[in-house]
C-alpha cells in the first residue's frame, strides 16, 4: 500500500559543499545509478542530480528480463538499485531538473532548477527517454482528456471504460495488461505487426475483453470536451474507420531526452546522442549512457551496463587525459 522511493532528500548543503566534482551524473534511472555505483567504487567524487529516481522503471509494472530477478516490479528493482548506491553514500540531489550544461575550458557547469550551479570535470548525461508521441491531430488537445502515456498513473480513470492502446512492442502489451483490472474493453491498435516478446504476447490470449487491430494506423484523435474515439486507417482494405473509445494509451516507445546537449554534441537524425566505445560523446569529458544514446535496444540491463562503461571510462579519462585542476 506504500510505494517508497526510499531516500532522505540529500540536504542541498551537502551537495553545495563540493567546489568541483570529478563526475556528475544527470539522471537516476538504471544508467545513472549504475554509473554512480561504479564511479564511487573507483574513489571518484561523484554525485547524482535527478528529477525522479528510477526513471522509466517507475512506469513499468513488471520486469521479467533483468537477469537474477524474475518477475520483479519496476519500482522494486529501482529501490534495490538505489539501496545499493546509497550504501556507498553517493550524494543525490533529487526532485530537481538540470536546465543547462555549459562547457567551460575542460570543465562543465551544470545549472539546476533549484537556482544553483555546480562544476564538474566530467559529466554523464543519463536522462533516458520520454514517451514518443504519435504526432496526429487531436493528440495534444486530448492529452489528459483521455489520451495518456502512463498506464499506471491513469488506469483508475478508465474504470469500466473502453480504452485503446497504441503500439505493438513490449510496453504496449504491458499497457494492455495494466488496464485489464480497470477497463471494460481494450482495443490494441498498431500500424504494423507485433514486435513484443513472444512470452508477453502469449499472455494476451487469455484476455477476453481485448480486440486487436494490426496493420492499422491511427490518423487522429476525436472528441469534444473529452476524447470520444480515434480515426484509423485499415491498411489492408485502405478504409478509414472510427473506433469509439474513452481513452487512448500511447505506448510506441521513447524519444531521447537529449535537449540539454544536443546542440553541442553529435546526434543522429532522431536526436539520440552518438557515443564512442567508451560512451564518450563528441565532446571530451562529456559522456552519455542508456536510452538517451543511439544504442537501439532500450532496455534496463543495457542502460545499466552503459552506465558502468561510462564510469570506468571517466576514471580513465581523469587519469590519462584531463588536464584541468
Amino acid at each position: 500500500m506504500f510505494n517508497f522511493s526510499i531516500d532522505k532528500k540529500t540536504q542541498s548543503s551537502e551537495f553545495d559543499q563540493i567546489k568541483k566534482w570529478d563526475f556528475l551524473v544527470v539522471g537516476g534511472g538504471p544508467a545513472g545509478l549504475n554509473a554512480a555505483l561504479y564511479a564511487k567504487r573507483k574513489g571518484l567524487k561523484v554525485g547524482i542530480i535527478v528529477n525522479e529516481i528510477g526513471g522509466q522503471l517507475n512506469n513499468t509494472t513488471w520486469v521479467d528480463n533483468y537477469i537474477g530477478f524474475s518477475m520483479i516490479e519496476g519500482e522494486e528493482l529501482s529501490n534495490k538499485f538505489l539501496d545499493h548506491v546509497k550504501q556507498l553514500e553517493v550524494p543525490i540531489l533529487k526532485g530537481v531538473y538540470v536546465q543547462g550544461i555549459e562547457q567551460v575550458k575542460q570543465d562543465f557547469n551544470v545549472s539546476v532548477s533549484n537556482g544553483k550551479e555546480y562544476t564538474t570535470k566530467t559529466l554523464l548525461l543519463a536522462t533516458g527517454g520520454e514517451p514518443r508521441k504519435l504526432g496526429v491531430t487531436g493528440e495534444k488537445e486530448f492529452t489528459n482528456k483521455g489520451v495518456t502515456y502512463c498506464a499506471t498513473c491513469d488506469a483508475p480513470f478508465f474504470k469500466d471504460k473502453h480504452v485503446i492502446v497504441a503500439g505493438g512492442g513490449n510496453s504496449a502489451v504491458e499497457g494492455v495488461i495494466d488496464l485489464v483490472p480497470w477497463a471494460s474493453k481494450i482495443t490494441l491498435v498498431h500500424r504494423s505487426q507485433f514486435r513484443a516478446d513472444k512470452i508477453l504476447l502469449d499472455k494476451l490470449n487469455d484476455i477476453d475483453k481485448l480486440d486487436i487491430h494490426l496493420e492499422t494506423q491511427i490518423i487522429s484523435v476525436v472528441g469534444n470536451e473529452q476524447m470520444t474515439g480515434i480515426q484509423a486507417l485499415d491498411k489492408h482494405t485502405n478504409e478509414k474507420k472510427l473506433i469509439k473509445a474513452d481513452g487512448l494509451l500511447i505506448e510506441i516507445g521513447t524519444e531521447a531526452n537529449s535537449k540539454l546537449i544536443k546542440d553541442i554534441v553529435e546526434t543522429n537524425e532522431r536526436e539520440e546522442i552518438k557515443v564512442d566505445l567508451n560512451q564518450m560523446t563528441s565532446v571530451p569529458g562529456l559522456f552519455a549512457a542508456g536510452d538517451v544514446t543511439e544504442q537501439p535496444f532500450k532496455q534496463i540491463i543495457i542502460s545499466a551496463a552503459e552506465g558502468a562503461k561510462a564510469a570506468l571510462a571517466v576514471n580513465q579519462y581523469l587519469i590519462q587525459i584531463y588536464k584541468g585542476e
Partner: protein
Amino acid sequence: MANLLNEEVSKQIKEALSPMQNEITMVLFTKESGCNTCEETEQLLTEVKALNDKISVEVKDIDKDKEDVEKYHITDVPTFVILDDNKKYKGVKFQGIPAGHEINSFLSAMVFMSGLDLGLDQKIVERLSKITKPIDIKVFVTLSCPHCPGAVATAHSLAMLNENIEASMIEAQTFQQLSVKHNVSGVPKIIINDEFELVGNHPIDAFLTELEKI
C-alpha cells in the same frame, strides 16, 4: 484494525523523518459518518506520529469545529493540514489519504515543514516573495502515479515559502466530484485558482513563472 504500517515500512518512514528539525502538528478533519477513508487516514497519521516525537496530531470534525474549518479552508473530508512549530498554517494541505506513491510527498511535507532547508537558491526565494496575490494550487493525483509526488512536493514548497500560496494534494478517486468538476482524467493535473491548468510535473521555476503570470 490491523496496523497500516508493518515493521519494514515503519523503519523506512522513521529513517525518512530523521532529518526533522522542529515540531509539527497535523490537524485532520473527519466526520462521524459517510466518510469511507477517514478512519484509515486517521490511523495513518497516528501511526506515523508514533515514529517521531516531533509530530503531534489533532483530529477535528468538519461539522463541529467550524472555526478551524474556516481557518484552514476545509471543504471536505478526509483533509489534513500540517502546521509549523508555532502552529502556523502555511498552506500545506492533503485531501485524501497520502498512501501509495503519495507517501513520498507526505514525508517530504513533514520534513520540510519542520524546518529543513528546501535547498533553493536565493534568486528563487526572492522571486517567490514578490507574489502578493492569493494563490490556490490544487494538485490532483492517483495513488498509483509515480510522477505525482514530485508535483505535490513542488507545490507544497511554494506554499511554505509564501503565505499567499496554499497548495493541496487531492486524491482524485476519493474526491471524485471535485475531479469531475475540473475534468481530471490524467494526473498529475494542477489547477491554479480554479482557472489555470498545468499538466505534468514541472520544475519549481517553471511553476513560479506560471504563478507570476496571474
